[in-house]
């Protein structure tokens, strides 16, 4: 029981970090469009975050697999595959010289990812609460609740 709780707490923080990271990237891109940031700064800020994000996301996916949480694993899997593809084709980083050409795509991509991560986050929070409730309450208490 304790391990399960630990898993969800971990997932909670990981998915929170993912949401935060993508949100930050979106903000950077928006700032770039509004001319608050220059392309050099934007791309270095975003590119710094991309690999950690990929790694976090992939490890979360694997974590779900080895803990045998099928549903979560399948939810996380497509994004992991997409990331792997980007990485393999060396397209994962923002190209500083052509930022503006791809900016609309990059923004859309990140908005989609943001939505996805938030969805994952909510699911995780739900399971976290559930498992927290399970672990901190005696079975009797639980029955009592109902």
């Amino acid at each position, binding site marked *: 029981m304790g391990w399960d709780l630990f898993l969800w707490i971990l997932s909670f923080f990981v998915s929170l970090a993912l949401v935060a990271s993508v949100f930050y990237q979106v903000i950077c891109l928006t700032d*770039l*469009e509004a*001319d608050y940031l*220059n*392309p*050099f700064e934007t*791309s270095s800020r975003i590119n710094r975050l991309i690999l950690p994000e990929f790694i976090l996301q992939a490890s979360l996916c694997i974590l779900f697999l080895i803990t045998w949480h099928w549903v979560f694993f399948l939810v996380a899997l497509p994004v992991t595959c997409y990331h792997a593809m980007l990485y393999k084709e*060396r397209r994962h*980083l923002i*190209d*500083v*010289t052509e*930022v*503006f*050409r791809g900016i609309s795509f990059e923004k859309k991509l990140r908005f989609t990812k943001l939505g996805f991560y938030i969805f994952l986050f909510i699911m995780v929070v739900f399971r976290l609460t559930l498992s927290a409730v399970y672990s901190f309450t005696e079975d009797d208490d639980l029955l009592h609740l109902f």
Partner: protein
Amino acid sequence: MILQLRVKSSSGHDLKPIAAVESVSCCASSRPFPLSHSLRAIVNMENQGYPNFQARPPPSSSSPFASAPPPGVRPQSGGPETVGFRPPTRPFTPSAPPVAPPVGAMRPFQSPLVSQIPGQGIRPPPPPPSSNSFPSTTYGPPGGGSFQRFPTPPPPSGPPPPQTLAGHLSPPMSLRPQQPMGPPPQSMTSGVPGGYASPPPAPGFQQSMPPVNPSYPGVGGPPQPSFPGYPSNQVLQGPPSSYPPQTGGFAQHPGQQNMHPSYAPPTSTVQALAEDFNSLSLTNIPGSLEPGLDRASFPRPLDGDVEPNSFAEMYPMNCHSRYLRLTTSAIPSSQSLASRWHLPLGAVVCPLAEAPEGEEVPLIDFGSSGIIRCRRCRTYVNPYVTFTDSGRKWRCNICSMLNDVPGEYFSHLDATGRRMDMDQRPELTKGSVEIIAPTEYMVRPPMPPIYFFLIDVSFSAAKSGMLQVAAQTIKSCLDNLPGYPRTQIGFITYDSTLHFYNMKSSLSQPQMMVVSDLDDIFVPLPDDLLVNLSESRNVVEAFLDSLPLMFQNNVNVESAFGPALKAAYMVMNQLGGKLLIFQNSLPSLGAGRLKLRGEDPRVYGTDKEYTLRVAEDNFYKQMAADCTKFQIGINVYAFSDKYTDIASLGTLSKYTGGQVYYYPGFQSSIHGDKLRHELARDLTRETAWESVMRIRCGKGIRFSSYHGNFMLRSTDLLALPAVDCDKAYAMQLTLEETLLTTPTVYFQVALLYTASCGERRIRVHTAVAPVVTDLGEMYRQADTGSIVSVYTRLAIEKTLSGKLDDARNVIQQKIVKALREYRNLHSVQHRLGSRLIYPESLKFLPLYGLAICKSTPLQGGPADASLDERCAAGFTMMSLPVKKLLKLLYPNVFRVDEWLLKPSADLDDLKDVLKRLPLAAENLDSRGLYIYDDGFRLVLWFGRMLSPDIAKNLLGADFAAELSRVTLQEQENGMSKKLMRLIKKVRENDQSYHPMCFLVRQGEQPREGFLFLRYLIEDQMGGSTSYVDWILQIHRHVQQNA
């Protein structure tokens, strides 16, 4: 076609020029009638030119046209005017322009009525003066003869309009069957019985029209006096005067070409004229190949680039077209119209183009008042701003903001609202000015001109003689480097190690420091690697003298390019400047080393093909971005005879606003002159440092994409670390609002830069273009050169993300789409048959399209050009100004043997010599000597049967030898001298590159094909299409779904 109708009524008051069409369409539906009255009156007067014609005062004084019926809305038939005559409203075909008030169409029928109304003061028009060019005088509309711009109209014999009412209804019906769609439908009113009195539309209304569907049942009737076949080329086409700038109103009237195509041309002369009208039609019959085809009649740009000047007189205050060229000088008024214009909508800007003697851009210092700019949109003050409030305020022409005039800049206005000091203020009279920028425009003190050389000194550099030539040239240019005495200079050489040179002025000889740790680059000296030229002149000269000797016997073949670049970057990033890289082999050591990847033929033809044309290693893009950030512009000189991955090296130039010079297989004996000249040009031409460029335009439109060698610093700011007169940038614009409400659109290019003298300056180019509602007008005002320039850049960009084939197809499809749209515009109204029609302004577009497909970056398959050549040409073409690009695409070929034999030794008759020939082998006479000149290469082609005397005179003793080993040198005879003078002259015409001279003899294979025949783009070579086939292909595609 737009015409300003300024008519004096007999009462003497001036009618306002007809308002802009947009306004017509906007408020049209509300009050159709009053407007049509005034309109009619005006038009009648205008058309018939009756001086005594009484104009009915316009009901709405402000804008006579204000209530034209809306597009496609048929006027209600309530009014007397329209009884019985249903104006031919626009057919609702897809080709019809969206905004096309049929006012013009109504006009003809209505006018007789109007004139009949007693008390209107309209007198029946007297027979017009004999000015009717229509040979057939059988018809009577007096108006027909009244066409003001008609060259020589014969006197019409028809009765005056008032009597003709009866004829109104019937003629069309009876006529149509009689002359059903006669050969070219041009015809004017030939079939109209005299009863038809309406005047032909004013020339101003001519253009445009939505083609009327002749089969429209309800409309068929009214014989339209307008002339579908009217030779607009000569008479009607875009007279600049038709856009009155001061009123902003275009009399252009979309409604007017509502004419009936069905009247046969009375005579063949009309037909001939008529052919011209739809802007040149090309008869070619796809089915029966040769018979109908006359190759010679195909349009060819043998006069070179013709700059669009139809608006030059109209808007004399626009900047010259060498600085800014729009793809069409008529901006579409709505998104729907823009979407039907399938050609690119944008501009090509060459901010620092070389001005001829006497036309230099004036330099202005605003002094204490500061630079006058709009508070809101930051537009610089320009000739199109208006001063109001007795000179205390000025209205921005781009955003209409009312700004205060600073006290120091104040000047009284004269009676006409002009500033008194107009003549002393070039910024208010000239489209191009240069403003001295105060300190607010600097983020740091203006940088001195800096030239930093990064020279590969490996084995091949010494062997090919490159070192020698480069060192000599640099030394000879030291005196001419711009910016004396602030100029700074520095050198790094490298092979497998990096060599830094301490050039401190106190030294007598430069000190060399070798750094061999390539993984962790450091700069051995903090200063003195980049020194002030005037102080360290001796050291620099000593270095340049010893440079070739030092590495004479270098056997190192490695090239630590990446680390060297990093080192140069570290030395330069304090100040920026220009970095010239001389690279002789593939970078092989340290960061940024590259692989031999161009050799793999399996990649060609696959989806991965494009990867060969983009930088392999992200290092290059990152370095380019970093360099741009620190104002370093990079020019790459590449010399290797083997693969050097120009695609990767060129990336450095591409994003730093530089250029790539490529000398494959450099040999100082052959290429020395070229390198010498081009390096000298690069070093000595006027350069703008640490610059940024932005182009502003009016509300509702926005520049959305930029093409060329630069890096975007924000969505619309081009960062150009070093820019000069040989660089041009293309951009495309989009309409952001569905409808533009202004009559004109303004463009302002601003380049903020540091001049070599250390002054911060802003070069401002302002131009205005009218907004039109008519697609035909857009086509008419199109500028082929600028369109081709944009297309070339788009195609080259496409090769960086797709196959060559795709890029070529894209070009073809774009041209087809444009021509199809144009065809649709006219097909309803004219019998086009199997003709390929195109506007006069775009007559060279198909040929240039073919030329783009056959240009080095795009041509053929892998075997046709080496990867490096392709990439180098691609980088070069991305930055070429329009004229040079067009010359490269369709080079000059001219015959010189006859001229050489002529006794006159002068070059006076140079014009005769330089008569360009079509680029087809059939035009070459084997008895002749021809010169091919594309601005980058000169090829002397010796015909097989050229008289040996000439060859002997020109080539000296070895005239019979194989020409690949012969270089052209001046011989001791008049003919040779004459030829050399000619070549010199050709080279002087365009200084930016030094065309190398190749000699080739007819039949000398494979050199001939490689050097010369391949560039005869009208011929079929290998898998490529010939001009005729290309036209047929395009025509076929155009007709599909046409």
